[in-house]
């Protein structure tokens, strides 16, 4: 009786080996485990017969059974490991790194926004606050308070779109300076980004464009400070090697006034690019990027600041121009066509 069970126990191992040998999937291997080692499997069935043996036979048979179980478990585990490793190997073999992805759509920020932000961040890092305001303005804020009374020839510098005699589309973001000065007391340092409007449309002008204007008012502000701030701006946006030039000019709301040129980003200030005349600076080596000056005392008088007590400076720059220079965009109108192939490049 006992030898019968022992024979059967001993035959289990080769049977399992043979069964595992034919198996190739984890599911089959699991089936084999259940068949041999499961609660109702072959081993369990043989073990249940042990109780029918004489007590003195039991320990030996039990020992053999345990050995068989250990051997089978080990064989089974090896097989599982082998299959898993084979599976992983197979996975590696069929893995295709070039297969296409689930790639979320790439959104984009309009280049004008991108550059406006870059400009603003230069100034906010220096302590300026960003202010916003209306795009439809009244004559006082846009012209009168900025030392451009009615019928002043300086109004010719900005062809204006009118809503009525005294209401207009702001021609610059300078009215925000006026609004700020009317509502706050010095010292102050603000920048005003935004849309502005002129009655002008050709290859190099669009009736709407964007400006960033800055204003700083304090007690001992100098024109050297203005130059410092603007040099910092040019260096941060265009690079440390760019030179900055101050040239006298005229704006009704600043005195003295200056145009700021920077050395040409395309030709490096030489005026020639690849032995041809530079198209960006027209051979001058300089490009005009902004206007600035010391706040005209007449402007302070209009907003109720004491011109004898306070000094300040203001500057204004065109975002489209800076963007065109920075990215080499040649056609101004592309900014407002919103071609997705154009916008996509500014993701």
């Amino acid at each position, binding site marked *: 009786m006992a030898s019968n069970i022992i024979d059967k126990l001993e035959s289990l191992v080769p049977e399992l080996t043979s069964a595992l040998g034919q198996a190739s999937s984890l599911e089959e291997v699991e089936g084999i485990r259940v068949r041999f080692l499961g609660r109702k499997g072959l081993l369990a069935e043989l073990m249940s017969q042990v109780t029918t043996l004489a007590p003195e036979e039991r320990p030996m048979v039990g020992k053999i059974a345990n050995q068989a179980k250990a051997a089978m478990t080990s064989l089974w585990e090896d097989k599982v490991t082998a299959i898993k490793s084979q599976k992983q190997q197979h996975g590696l073999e069929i893995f295709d790194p070039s297969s296409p992805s689930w790639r979320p759509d790439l959104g984009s920020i309009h280049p004008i926004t991108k550059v406006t932000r870059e400009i603003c961040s230069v100034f906010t890092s*220096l302590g300026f606050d960003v202010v916003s305001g209306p795009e439809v303005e009244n004559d006082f804020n846009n012209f009168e308070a900025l030392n451009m009374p009615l019928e002043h020839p300086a109004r010719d510098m900005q062809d204006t779109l009118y809503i009525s005699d005294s209401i207009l589309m702001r021609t610059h973001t300078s009215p925000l300076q006026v609004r700020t000065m009317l509502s706050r007391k010095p010292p102050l340092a603000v920048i005003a980004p935004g849309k502005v409007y002129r009655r002008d449309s050709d290859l190099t002008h669009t009736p709407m464009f964007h400006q960033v204007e800055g204003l700083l008012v304090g007690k001992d502000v100098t024109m*050297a*400070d203005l130059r410092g701030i603007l*040099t910092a701006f040019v260096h941060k946006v265009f690079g440390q090697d760019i030179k900055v030039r101050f040239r*006298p000019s005229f704006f009704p709301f600043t005195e003295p*006034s200056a145009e700021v040129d920077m050395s040409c980003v395309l030709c490096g200030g030489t005026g020639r690019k690849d032995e041809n005349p530079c198209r960006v600076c027209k051979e001058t080596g300089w490009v005009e990027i902004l206007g600035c000056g*010391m706040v005209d005392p007449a402007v302070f008088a209009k907003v109720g600041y004491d011109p004898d007590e306070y000094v300040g400076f203001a500057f204004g720059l065109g975002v489209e121009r800076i963007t065109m220079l920075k990215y080499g965009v040649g056609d101004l109108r592309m900014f407002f066509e*919103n071609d997705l192939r154009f916008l996509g490049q500014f993701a």
Partner: protein
Amino acid sequence: MLLSLNWLREFVPYTGEVQTLCDRLTMLGLEVEEIRYPFAPLDKIVVGHVVERVAHPSADHLSCCKVDLGYGEIVDIVCGAPNVASGQKVPVAPIGAVMPDGLAIKKAKLRGQVSCGMICSERELGLSEDHSGIMVLDANLQPGMALAEALNLDQIVLDVGITPNRADCLSVLGLAREVAMAFNLPLTMPQFDVLEQGEAFENFTIDPDPHLCSLYQARCIRNVQIGPSPQWLRYRLLAVGLRPINNIVDTTNYVLMECGQPLHAFDGDKILGHCLRVQCAQDDMEFTTLDGQKRQLTKDDLLIWDAKRPVALAGVMGGANSEISDSSSTVFLESAVFHPVSVRRTARRLGLSSDASYRFERGVDHICNTWAMNRAASLMAQLAGGAVAPGVARSEPRPFVATHISYTPAKASTLLGLSLTNDFSHQTLTQLGCQIDDTQLPWTVTAPSYRLDLVREVDLIEEVARVYGMDQIPATLPAVRKTLDDLTLVDPTYDFINEVKDWGRGVGLAEVVNYSFVGTADLNKLGLSELGRVHICNPLSEEMNVLRTEIAPGLLHTLRHNMSQDNVRVRIFEIAHAFVHDGSCDTATKENNRLGILLHGNRFPGRFPYTEGTVGYADIKGLVEHLLLAIHVGSPKFVQGVGHPYLSPEVEIQVQGQSIGRLGKMRDDLADFYLARHEAWYADLDLDLLMHMRGNIVFRPLPRFPVVRRDMTFIAPHDLAIGDIIDTIMALQEPLLEDVYLVNVYEPAESSARNLSFRFVFRHPEKTLKDKEVDKITARISQHLLKQLPVHFS
């Protein structure tokens, strides 16, 4: 301002490089925008000597000439002009020359005779309209000499940008002053004599409006012969962009360009009644200017009148009734100073900006007035053979008063951040023509009569800085001082808008920027109300004549552009102001920051592994929900509306009980109009409202006990909204029901009902829920639903 270098050199002996001059002027604030070569087309034209002329053997009107082109080169030229003759010096276009009209000169045969060049008329050279014959040059000229040189043409002309404050530089004289100062050269005024002869110009009354005309004077030049001006004058005017007319008119233009004082020549015989008055028009008066245009006047327009009628629009343009004609023989020469604002108003209103009005608007030199008048009178006598009558008719209601300005030299250094010496200030201001009393501080500086822009100390500081070199100013960084209040008063708009823009980029939308104005037709097309529109009174075009009352038209323009470029998958957003009339605002316009989102085309990029399918309601709604979650304003409600002008279906978005915008599908006819190829879904949100609604983030501790999930499927009619089912469930206010959402929809074909599977999520805050407890709640919910709604279980 076009400045001829030759002309300039008549005032200042500048002999340096042209580029050096341009650079210096630019750095003085007189930006040289361009160097022009007005006679460049004549570069190849040379002086030729007609050595021999014989009649063409086979053509009556042609001549065969042998022409000496200098340097021993004698060529055959066939010429058709009647006046060609042997011995003449003539302009010749040799082979290879290109005429101003583009004609290239080549070797040719005319009726069998070889011709190697062309003898030119003035018209062919672009010098005048004269084509009656060839141009005959001074007999003393050397053959082979360049024509431009032979005629002493103004070959180099600088286009100088003059800022509105520098009226004094709108003349050769003014720029010459700057050049003299910059290069430390002497300034020489042209010398002339006024030879007065004949009957005196007297008993002539001048009666100016004292407010609008501070000086009016006139001279009379008799027995003038009207005719073309001499070559030098005509060509000089051409070089600076003026069209020669006749010797009298050209003289007034010449003196205007020379010293900046506009002059006007009347035909003296047409001035009635020995008087000139300067007085305003009446409303609705008509007046014909010398360009033949009938002008409608107002009472603000200043006129020159004779005893009976108006004869000129003061400072703007003369009248047709008194203009110089070929038969004129007496000239009344006006030299006046008119009020800048008055001239400007009239010139602008009539759209009639002239060289004269441009200068009057900016202010002319009162003191130079007499010089200009005499200079012109002298030239007229010389060029038109006239006699200047003795005497001047003159009235000066307001003589020139010089401006005295206090100036503290140290202030310039402080403002500019430079250390300037007192000597430098003194020297500079003196060179600029100022008188300085420096016996005490502050100095008293008297500005010259031609510098009307020098009024205040800061104007003088600018002058000193300009001459010192603004580029010498060093760069320092200021300390930005602020108050504590400033830190909390910062306007949040810029940051909030940027946050939303970053959100848009993050969810795969492209930001677009459109014009704030569109055409009335665009707003009408969308069915937007005509009330509240803000119109532009002087629009550039009909397509840009009104501000967007909603921003949708802009996004639709973008859609159309991209459709035309075959960019079909459009996922865009724009943040911009919408403008609506509001009389209570100080700008009469209420501006509102709006966010517009437009989706069109495939939901996914249309490639493996993505599925096909175009965008729909779920896409636009999902984006709106995503944004509202991202900015923490609370959960939205979507309520179907009716009657929206351009969306159908239309869904109102409510947050915290307020309507914050709308979303929906663009009406089909609009989508077609804007070339859409699929459905276009649109959302429009009020960012100003959202900015104020956004809440703080409130931290909640994480739950400690697990959830139990149960799915239930109902059969519901198609017209029962999913939201109604969820609302009905939520109305029970089951405290342990944490969430409920739709997990599946099955819509059997040809059935009016659909199967909706919901997942219910339950959680107890303080213990693990048992199945039995959950069973009780789900039973309550399903009974409630069966009772309240037309649903049943399968």
